């Protein structure tokens, strides 16, 4: 029990070089899969521990708190850890067959190494209680993500990766500058220590201006990383051209972790009163969020590459998360956190379906979907169910998110925001249904090689995620309680 927090990061971090050492594709897959399952087990144990005995603080190398690096697990990051490890534990079994098709033999060990490093980085960001350590992990996950995207089959994957590299580096630099400013102001990097020292600064003092500047840099940096409209430009290309497995993994985890960082800095370090009442983060986030919901959904309707369509839909869905945050109420924040979980489930399922289609058909243009309703009935059924969750039909996880978001907007009487939330889901109906109509009502291509349904190795993880979408639409006690608990902890402004 004592060393669980550090093992959460160490396990994938140590698995990564091992993948490289075994040098055989399948063997390194096995290592990676075991590491990801171990990670899931640890995150479940941590969640259990946190929910029964309260937050855990772990001092790395036994160095006491303000000097050494501290890992801190509370309601919010236990929940995010669970999201990341669950997605990883489902993505890796899925990876075997998909990677064998899309990645060349000699690159496979490298691929799994990078995937594990990325996972370690994401987990590190979430679990650490040290601002600079968070930046280090951020770079770790980002660099491996650039390389992973660059491994895509099409040559445009390289430009997509480069684009992401440029934007991501700008974002990371902004975050680094923000952290540097906070350090110059307070002389500490430990998150709890930062929070208590910032709380002592009177509003009128000189330090105030540095704080505002730091906040501005941090917000822009996080917004770039979480692809908040209009800073999302790297995302559609990256998701479209990355290998299927990478898209599944990144779409379901990377942006959520960026949202987590935003929450952690805004609420736990700077304090919700300062951020929302003096710096008006609510107003700053509100407009881009609403614009994301409407504009990105509209753009999604006109995409012919379905992976790109889903990528734009991700931009819109991130808008829902940041919208929840910007409402600055318990319900709103909770809806935002809940949607991180639910969106990971639905987008994971949808991108897995894309991977299955591309496994059989080779690409995922709209025209490739013709007749797939008959040819790949299970994959397309999964796509329809995942799509229903995205639209927010009752009995799916997406409905629950939408319910709480609308409730949060109605609580403060914002009718126009309510309308935009609902218009967003209606636009989702349109872009999902384009695919459904093509798959079920258009005849098969003339040139048809007798390929059938996707292999079980892809279908099982896909349907586990679809099942989770349905299960968490009916029995919502776990995510709703966790999100509600995390939201109250954040609003109290402490790392409880």
């Amino acid at each position, binding site marked *: 029990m004592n060393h669980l927090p550090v093992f959460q990061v160490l396990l994938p971090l140590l698995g990564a070089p091992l993948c490289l050492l075994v040098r055989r594709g399948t063997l390194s897959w096995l290592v990676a899969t075991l590491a990801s399952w171990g990670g899931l087990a640890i995150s479940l144990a941590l969640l259990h521990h946190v929910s029964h005995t309260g937050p855990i603080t772990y001092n790395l190398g036994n160095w006491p708190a303000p000097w050494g690096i501290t890992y801190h697990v509370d309601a919010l990051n236990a929940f995010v850890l669970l999201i990341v490890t669950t997605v990883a534990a489902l993505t890796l079994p899925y990876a075997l067959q998909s990677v064998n098709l899309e990645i060349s033999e000699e690159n496979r060990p490298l691929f799994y190494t990078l995937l594990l490093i990325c996972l370690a980085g994401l987990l590190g960001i979430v679990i650490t209680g040290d601002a600079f350590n968070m930046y280090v992990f951020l770079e770790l996950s980002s660099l491996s993500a650039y390389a992973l995207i660059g491994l895509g089959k099409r040559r445009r994957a390289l430009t997509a990766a480069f684009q992401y590299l440029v934007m991501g580096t700008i974002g990371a630099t902004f975050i680094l500058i923000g952290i540097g400013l906070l350090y110059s102001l307070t002389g500490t990097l430990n998150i709890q220590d930062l929070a208590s020292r910032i709380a002592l600064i009177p509003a009128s003092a000189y330090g105030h201006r540095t704080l505002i500047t730091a906040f501005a840099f941090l917000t822009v940096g996080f917004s770039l990383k979480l692809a908040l409209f209009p800073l999302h430009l790297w995302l559609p290309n990256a998701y479209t051209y990355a290998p299927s497995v990478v898209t599944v993994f990144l779409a379901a985890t990377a942006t959520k972790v960026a949202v987590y960082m935003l929450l952690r800095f805004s609420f736990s370090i700077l304090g919700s009163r300062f951020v929302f009442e003096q710096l008006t983060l609510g107003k700053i986030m509100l407009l881009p969020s609403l614009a994301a919901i409407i504009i990105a959904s509209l753009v999604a309707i006109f995409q012919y590459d379905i992976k790109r369509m889903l990528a734009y839909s991700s931009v819109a869905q991130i808008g829902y998360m940041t919208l929840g945050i910007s409402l600055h109420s318990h319900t709103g924040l909770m809806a935002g956190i809940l949607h991180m979980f639910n969106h990971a489930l639905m987008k994971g399922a949808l991108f897995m379906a894309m991977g299955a289609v591309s496994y059989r058909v080779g690409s995922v243009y709209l025209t490739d979907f013709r007749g797939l309703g008959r040819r790949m009935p299970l994959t397309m059924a999964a796509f329809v169910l995942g799509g229903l969750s995205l*639209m927010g039909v009752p009995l799916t996880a997406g409905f629950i998110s939408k319910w709480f978001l*609308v*409730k949060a907007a109605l609580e403060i009487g914002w009718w126009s925001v*309510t*309308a935009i939330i609902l218009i967003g889901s209606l636009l989702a109906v349109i872009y999902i249904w384009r695919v459904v*109509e093509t798959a079920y*009502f258009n005849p098969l291509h003339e040139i048809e090689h007798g390929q059938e349904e996707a292999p079980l190795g892809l279908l099982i993880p896909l349907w586990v995620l679809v099942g989770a979408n349905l299960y968490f*639409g009916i029995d919502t006690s776990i995510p*709703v309680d966790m999100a509600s608990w995390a939201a109250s902890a954040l609003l109290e402004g402490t790392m409880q």
Partner: protein
Amino acid sequence: MTTANLLQLCILIPAIGALFIAASTRLPNLREGVTILTSASLLATVFQLFRRTDVFSQTPLVLATPLPGIDFELHLEPLGLLFAGIASLLWLITSLYTIGYMRCNSEQHQTRLYVCFAIALSSTMGIALAGNLLTLFLFYELLTLSTYPLVTHKGDHDAVAGGRFYLGILIATSVGLLLPAIIWTWQVAGTTSFRPGGILDWTMAPAGVSLLLMLYAFGIGKAALMPIHRWLPEAMVAPTPVSALLHAVAVVKAGVFSLVKIVLYIFGPKLLLETGSHLFLITIASITIVGASVIALQQDNLKRRLAYSTVSQLAYISLAVAVLTPLSVTAAALHIAAHAFGKITLFFAAGAIYTAAHKTRVSELDGIGRRMPWTMTAFAIGSLSMIGLPPAAGFISKWFLLQGALIQPLWPVAAVLLLSTLLNASYLMPIVYVAFFRSETRPPHHEHGEAPKIMVIALCATALLTLLLFIKPDPVLRLAQLLTGGFQ
């Protein structure tokens, strides 16, 4: 077996039936046998509920708790029992009819049709038994989604376009208007359970009450109040059995049923009468009654004419509940039954004509009554019920509605009723007239008589039910009168 178990069975039987139907796809006879068996056992279950005395005094049955403080729950009340009874009885008859229709027209994808039919019925039962707004919304959406493959059954361009219209309007209104209305209700009242006398109270401003009522009236797109009615004619691209059961009974009745339930059990008569909000609903319903009848006059396609007639008849039910007197509420419940029996007869007849003679237009029907006497006699009975003339069931509901309107007193409503009676007669009676009294202008493509026997039996059965409901309306009337408890 406890009453709670029976309620669960009502939803489970069609759902499980759907699985068995899907499994027996290779054996058409077995598949159709399973369909009949499923619908018969559903009818038996609902009949059991009719005989229970404790059926309305049960505590709500909680299925799951998806949101804190708000459950998926089943709770039976008189109107729900009435709706469940009508839907399950007509499903059995429609199943027989469907078998004849599908085989005779050798339609594609028959298994998919039977499976979706069963799922749609399961959702309909869910709507009938829903104990709160969230449960109602859940099954309402499921009904929309499960009927989509039925509307687009043919798979050609028209069917896909019609399906787009269908899904687009129904989902847009339910997500865009009904869902916020439900969440708003939950926020104001703290509950979404249906309770006699309503759950909303005086904390809402009158303007708020009116706005909320409008959100519900237009959000429930299945009630087809103008201008949200366009999906119904578009849905007529579906095979006729689908139009008959779903777009004359299950789907549209689910709409007006929800509206009646919301008016009686969410708002409550007192709140609406004192804020005057019911006048909005009366106005919209009146416009729809007259408007849809006028449009029906101009339709040459028989099924489209019947569809506009459905729009108009549904508005009768909305109007009846909006008048808010015990008599008119009784009329609303009665008309749900009367219109169901009458309209399904008309659609069955239209399908029989299509099957036997391959005719879809009113202008082609000259003299067809001599070749298909049973079908056209049933059609005439259904028409009488639509117009509201004895000896058909439509007369009784219209009688109660008129009485209710005169007690209130709402003279314009009485005028609307009179006008619409004339309009109904003028778009339905000519069909009966030309079928029987005009001779064929040119010989048909092929010699034909009646449609297959099983279809004729089905449509005669529903026509008989229309007459029976006029002679012996007691079982329905008894349930309808239990509804008026909220007025004391």
